[in-house]
């Protein structure tokens, strides 16, 4: 099966282990969420996959071939990182031109269309763009490029709510039209949750969890009602979080809802962000 596969990938910065024997796969045609707290190793992993950094140990394969300095395989990956790697003097139009030259099959018409939708002037130099528009021109490049693997590291950095909505919509439309592997590394979990098919959580440089989004969302539930009744119900259960307003309380519980739930309590669907926060807190790994 076609995929990006990491086997035992490690990366050390001096004494710091940024990645510790990470093994995972990004399979063909799926949207992945790569989640993790700050410093968990997400960006380092993406850098190692794309050869921007050399892993201290382990191997990265793209469609079964080693990716390290293998241009044929590296051309299958377009990685939009947080760092500005385009020359400051380059205009957005030139970015499109050169991306087309290097990757081939760049959809210039679609890119120009997206520029119009997002209100981006492609004649502008990349260094003259605001933080938000710097993300936007890179996102447009990623959407218009003809690569089977798209890695997006904090893609909506600096984007306002309207542009974020537009991007998520465009991403889904693009994916529906041309299914490919998309890896979203983001801190805005709540916003991206509805897009994700699979979730990989990195914690302290290790893979903490790799499940489908549905599996994760069914691993817990919320319960709300009168404070005293909720308190009585959650006693002895694995509570991920709880919140009280007035006399009412909502708690997020890990596990499956009981069949004989008190009639006075309401149950609801788990929130991916709350689960993520709970899992990555100290001793959170015990939830798994």
């Amino acid at each position, binding site marked *: 099966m076609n995929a990006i596969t990491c086997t035992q990938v490690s990366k050390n910065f001096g004494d710091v282990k940024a990645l510790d024997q990470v093994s995972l796969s990004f399979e063909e045609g799926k949207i992945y969420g790569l989640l993790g707290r700050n410093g968990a190793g997400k960006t380092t992993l993406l850098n190692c996959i794309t050869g*921007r*950094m050399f892993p201290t140990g382990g191997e990265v394969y793209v469609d079964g071939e080693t990716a390290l300095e*293998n*241009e044929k395989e590296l051309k299958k990956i377009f990685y939009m990182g947080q760092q500005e790697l385009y020359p400051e003097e380059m205009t957005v139009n030139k970015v499109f031109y050169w*991306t087309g030259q290097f990757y081939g099959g760049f959809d210039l018409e679609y890119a120009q269309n997206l520029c119009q939708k997002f209100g981006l002037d492609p004649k502008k130099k990349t260094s003259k763009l605001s933080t938000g528009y710097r993300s936007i021109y890179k996102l447009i490049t990623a959407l218009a490029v003809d690569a089977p693997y798209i890695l997006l590291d904090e893609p909506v950095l600096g984007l306002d709510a309207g542009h974020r909505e537009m991007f998520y919509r465009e991403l889904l439309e693009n994916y529906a039209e041309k299914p490919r592997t998309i890896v979203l590394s983001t801190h805005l979990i709540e916003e991206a949750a509805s897009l994700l098919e699979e979730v990989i959580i990195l914690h302290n440089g290790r893979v903490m969890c790799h499940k489908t989004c549905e599996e994760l969302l069914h691993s817990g539930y919320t319960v709300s009602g009168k404070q005293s009744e909720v308190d009585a119900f959650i006693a002895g259960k694995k509570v991920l979080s709880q919140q009280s307003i007035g006399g009412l309380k909502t708690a997020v519980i890990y596990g499956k809802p009981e069949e004989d739930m008190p009639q006075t309590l309401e149950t609801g669907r788990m929130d991916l962000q709350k689960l993520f926060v709970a899992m990555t807190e100290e001793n959170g790994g015990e939830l798994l």
Partner: protein
Amino acid sequence: MKLTSKYYLNSLRNSFLMAFGIILGLSLSFGIVLRSAQSENLDYSISGFELTFMIFTLVTGLVSFRESFRFFQQNGISRKSQFTGWAVSLLVLSAVEAVVAILSGRVLGLFFNYRGIFNQLYQTLQTSGNPALLLVQEFLWVCMACLVLGWAGFSFALLYYRLSKMGKILVSILVPGTLFILLPMADQHFLGGSYAWLLEKAGMLITGYLPGGIYPMVPVAAALVCSAVLAVLSWLMMRRAEVRS
């Protein structure tokens, strides 16, 4: 490699034309002013294309690595392709510079007393030597001078890119300190003139002024060897270079 060369040459085109325009403008201005002064029995000569292109290539080497490396990494280009792309581009640039410098010198020579560095250095060969052979030698001399300076700039930029902050400080202080202060002092007190002898020999290699005669192809060969050494060093530094923030 073809695409990386295309990118390099594309990004060099404008700055090269600018450097050429500036030196052409300066040469014409000085030529006109000095020619009118010649009528008052003042001797004059102008030059500068070779030197301008040599400095231009050195600066190009210095500034070419970081930005291009990051851009190529963004586009999934292997370090090997980047390196060969640069090597080809530098060779093309040096050859173009040599041709442009010689042609410009010849054209300006029709109107002014233009004497390029090569003609000044090897004046004695001009009258006795074969003109066609001299032209080839001039081309190779300018081309190789540009080439070695381009590699020098590129390898220096790579060295600084790879070094840590402390390493950069140490190299910045130790290299000039050793070459210009420590070694001359040591030469005076302990080395018995060996360093000065070495510099003299290096000077002979660079100019081709050897005890047996004047050989313009000696500096060409020396530049070629130095370029090869610098290219190998550059590759060794580049093959493990990573994108830094």
